[in-house]
């Protein structure tokens, strides 16, 4: 359960968020949709605790990030905007490092790593250094990192960007499985197919504000457009930044 309340954030003269409010429910996949530069990444960065809002609050399972950042971060699994890897560490060492940072360790952590390796089909490169990994392999390691502590809330910033068809389908299948476990899933995208294929609910954000919030059908009905893409354009009021 994630709640964002009236988030404001400016970088110098640039206003990135101007009052963003929405909830993300458990057992649902919620898509955060918006053109490039709409403020998606800024909102998520505030949510996962690397940026502080100028105003407003973000809570995870009722835990306020401003008051207890570490406690809130413990409840989140995050695939961040920049998901670089350490080229001299193996995939397994990545999972172990970030598992330990979540306070896990010992045989339980090692078993969890094996479980994730099976889930994400990492067997063949699990013990190779990540230098020279393909996009798909890198993303699997990053996803493994996000899930290593078995979080109830999962936040992903453009999880399928740069992936081929097979990789995209695998990620979608994984997100559905996590939802069916009753987890709270929030992901950002600017790709329309992603939303129609996956989302139970869409939050559309443009120019730092929420301009639409509902199921894909709600969105189509509210804007009176047949295709989701047209509905999206109608909601944000222009065609800028459509990918």
């Amino acid at each position, binding site marked *: 359960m994630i709640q964002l309340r009236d988030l404001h954030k400016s970088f110098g003269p640039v206003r990135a968020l101007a009052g963003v409010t929405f909830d993300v429910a458990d057992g649902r996949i919620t898509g955060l949709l918006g053109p490039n530069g709409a403020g998606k990444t800024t909102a998520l960065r505030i949510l996962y605790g*690397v940026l502080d809002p100028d105003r407003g609050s973000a809570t995870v399972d009722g835990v306020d990030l401003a008051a207890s950042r570490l406690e809130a971060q413990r409840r989140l699994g995050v695939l961040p905007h920049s998901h670089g890897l350490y080229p001299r560490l193996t995939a397994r060492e990545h999972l172990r490092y970030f598992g330990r*940072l979540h*306070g896990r360790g010992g045989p339980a952590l090692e078993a969890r790593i094996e479980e994730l390796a099976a889930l994400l089909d990492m067997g063949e490169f699990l013990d190779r250094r990540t230098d020279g990994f393909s996009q798909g392999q890198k993303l699997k390691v990053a996803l493994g990192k996000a899930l290593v502590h078995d979080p109830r809330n999962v936040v992903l910033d453009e999880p399928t960007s740069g992936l081929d068809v097979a990789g995209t389908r695998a990620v979608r299948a994984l997100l559905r499985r996590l939802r069916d476990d009753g987890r709270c899933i929030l992901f950002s995208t600017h790709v329309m197919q992603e939303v129609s294929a996956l989302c139970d609910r869409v939050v559309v954000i443009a120019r730092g504000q929420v301009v639409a919030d509902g199921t894909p059908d709600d969105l189509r009905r509210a804007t009176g457009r047949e295709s989701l893409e047209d509905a999206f354009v109608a909601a944000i009021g222009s065609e800028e930044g459509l990918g």
Partner: protein
Amino acid sequence: MRLDHLGVVLRKEVADNLRDRRAVAMALLFPLLGPVLLAVTFSVVARQARSAEERPLTLPVAGADHAPHLVQFLRGAGADVVEAPADPEGAVRAGDRDLVLVVPPEFGARLREGRPAPVRLVIDESRQSAHAAVERARAMLSAWSRQTGALRLMARGVHPAAAEALALETVDLSTPESRAGLLLSMLPYFLVVAVFVGGMYVAIDTTAGERERQTLEPLLLHPVPRESVALAKVAATALFATLALAETIVGFGLVPAALPLERLGFSIRLDPGMLLRTFVLFLPLLLLASALQVLVAVRARGFKAAQASLSFLMLVPALPSAVLALVPFKLRPWMMLVPSFGEQQLVLRLVRGEPVAAGLQALSMGASALYALLLVAAAARLFRSERSMFGK
């Protein structure tokens, strides 16, 4: 200050950087430079000293026929008088001869008249390697001059001592340790360099490198206090620097043992106790250097920029000592408050075999430790700042 998971981050940074060839080379190979340079310097000095003492002075004399008595005296004093080349000045200039003694034809006549008889010693004052030979030739010539002069005075019924207004006696207070200290004066700077270079790549890799690889944000979104992250990076840097410092000190300790220095009139007492004292003396400075490097590197735009800044940073501690090497000065307690300068001056005195007051050492270490703690706190603060972590 919360420091959960500091050990997890530290262990990862150390393991990661031990796999980095550059980081390991900087920590392990670079510190060998000082001891190797010292060993080379000593063997060059040793060879020169030996050749100057053991070889007879080869003295080319032009116009030896004009001064048979002088030549006989020189031979008696141990010089190997040989035929001079046709062009004495050209030969010295070209480096074929270290020196040439030229006796002009009028030598005999002037000598008989009791007037100063001219001789010319052709040398190149700037040639360091010829110094010993030139000094010996000068000493021989003035000995003959004094002896002949004394004979003339006695012939006139004057006591030769009347011609000596001064009884000059030079008392050389240099000890074998202090003579060696002159050669060891480069040691302090190598210790400072080790302290900076040892962890340099780790400081860059764990900060600017982390940012460039885009792993900084993934790290900081984990439930780890920022202080832990900052301190782990300083600690990893300090560990590599400690390795470099220890290696440098052990290296310098082994050089005197490997070379026959006592025979050359040098004595270096780099005994284990003194080496350990030097190691301890440099530890607060080491922490200061590591914290400073992390602070500078985390603000750099990228790996290359950080590298440039840190290379420059390394030169700064050399400046005060380099300036004061040219100006004589007396060590004052307040100088201990200048980080790196205090340590360098104290270790210089240690290797010269001079007593170093425990109070001065404590003052120097205390001052550096204080600066180090302030810098560590500043680094922790910087890691908390959203702008320095994610600002453009």
